Each structure stands twice: as structure tokens, then as C-alpha cells.
């Protein structure tokens, strides 16, 4: 079944550690996105990609970086985690709206806690 997968589901890590949050999708979608969800549940776009070797920063400034070497894979990396990075991170993918469907498919999220 086509879907989008995020690992790990939960992560507790010490300050200064490097971490990578994984996101993979099996739907062949060109577009992929990373959102940070704050405690009030509001969603903030931090990175997006329209295809391989295409990445852009989103509306909310983030110290994280992303890469898109393969269509199905869109990992997010924090070089040096800080307590301010504690949040829920959601990955999503979608088709282009002219396909007649539009809309996003979301992963289950990674809840990151930096201590």
C-alpha cells in the first residue's frame, strides 16, 4: 500500500548531538514537505522540495537542513540539536494539483525532545 513513512516515531537526544529524521514515500510524488508543529498544534512549513536535487526553505526559519537525492527519500538533519528544537516534525508528500487531486499525504510524525 502506497504511503509515507517517518522514523523514528519518538526521539530523545542530548544537546549538541547530530540527528537525522527520516521520511520516505512509496507513491512516486515529486513534491515533499517538512512541517514543524508547535505545542499549540499550529503547522509551520520549514522545508520543501519539488523534485530530486530541489530543496527550498519554508516560511519558518529553521536551523535544520534537508536533501533530496532520490524521489522517495527526504531526510531532515540537525547538525547540533538544542532544546529549542524540541517539537513534532511532520513530513508530507503530494502530487501536483493539475493532476486533479492535489492535497497532501502525511507521515505519522517524529516527536523530538532535546534534553
Amino acid at each position, binding site marked *: 500500500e502506497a504511503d509515507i513513512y517517518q522514523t523514528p516515531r519518538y526521539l530523545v537526544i542530548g544537546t549538541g548531538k547530530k540527528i537525522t529524521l527520516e521520511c520516505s514515500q512509496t507513491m512516486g510524488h515529486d513534491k515533499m514537505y517538512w512541517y514543524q508543529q508547535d505545542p499549540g498544534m499550529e503547522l509551520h512549513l520549514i522545508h*520543501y522540495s519539488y523534485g530530486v536535487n530541489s530543496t527550498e526553505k519554508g516560511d519558518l526559519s529553521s536551523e535544520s537542513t534537508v536533501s533530496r537525492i532520490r524521489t522517495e527519500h527526504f531526510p531532515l538533519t540537525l547538525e547540533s540539536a538544542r532544546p529549542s528544537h524540541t517539537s513534532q516534525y511532520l513530513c508530507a508528500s*503530494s502530487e501536483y494539483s493539475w493532476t486533479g487531486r492535489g492535497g497532501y499525504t502525511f507521515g505519522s510524525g517524529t516527536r523530538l525532545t532535546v534534553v
Partner: protein
Amino acid sequence: AQTVTQSQPEMSVQEAETVTLSCTYDTSESDYYLFWYKQPPSRQMILVIRQEAYKQQNATENRFSVNFQKAAKSFSLKISDSQLGDAAMYFCAYLPQGGSEKLVFGKGTKLTVNP
């Protein structure tokens, strides 16, 4: 820039009753998509219902229906025969057709279903 406003941070409904969640949006575009997403506690965000702006007929998915008023830029979600499993955060979202292809989310409405 397009904006999406959900004026009800929290709503509650009795099981089996009907509840309506409000959403307004601001855009100068004529072609776009509107969505309602549901995010249950600690679970994956899923698409509830989708509306194409060029369609006058309101979308319906089982117990979920929308009241789409294009001139008023209003897109409310009605949940009939509410069930305990409907308890979740509900996000209204706007997607322009073509262009940036980035979803614009409202801040969400937390729905509680009382037994």
C-alpha cells in the same frame, strides 16, 4: 498572500449530535482547492474532505460535508452523528492551483466529543 482563518480554537459536541467547524480564507485566485484534515491525538494527519473551487456542489464524504460559499470565502465542515473517534484537531487548508503548490493551513480547531 493567502490566509486561512479558523475562528474556533476549541469546540465540543455530544455523541450522535451535529457540529459545524468554521473556516474562512482570503485569496484573489479563482481556481484553488480547499481541504479539511483531521489529526487525532498522537496519530497521523488524514484527509477528511476536499473541495474544488470551480465546483458549486458541496463535497460530501459519509458523515462529513462542507458548506462552500465561494463569494464569501467560507468553507465550513459539518460532522453529523458525531462519534467518539471524531475527537481530533481539525485543520482547514487552501491550495492554489499551479503556482507555489504549497498548502496554507489554518491554526486548527480542537474538537472534543462527549459521551
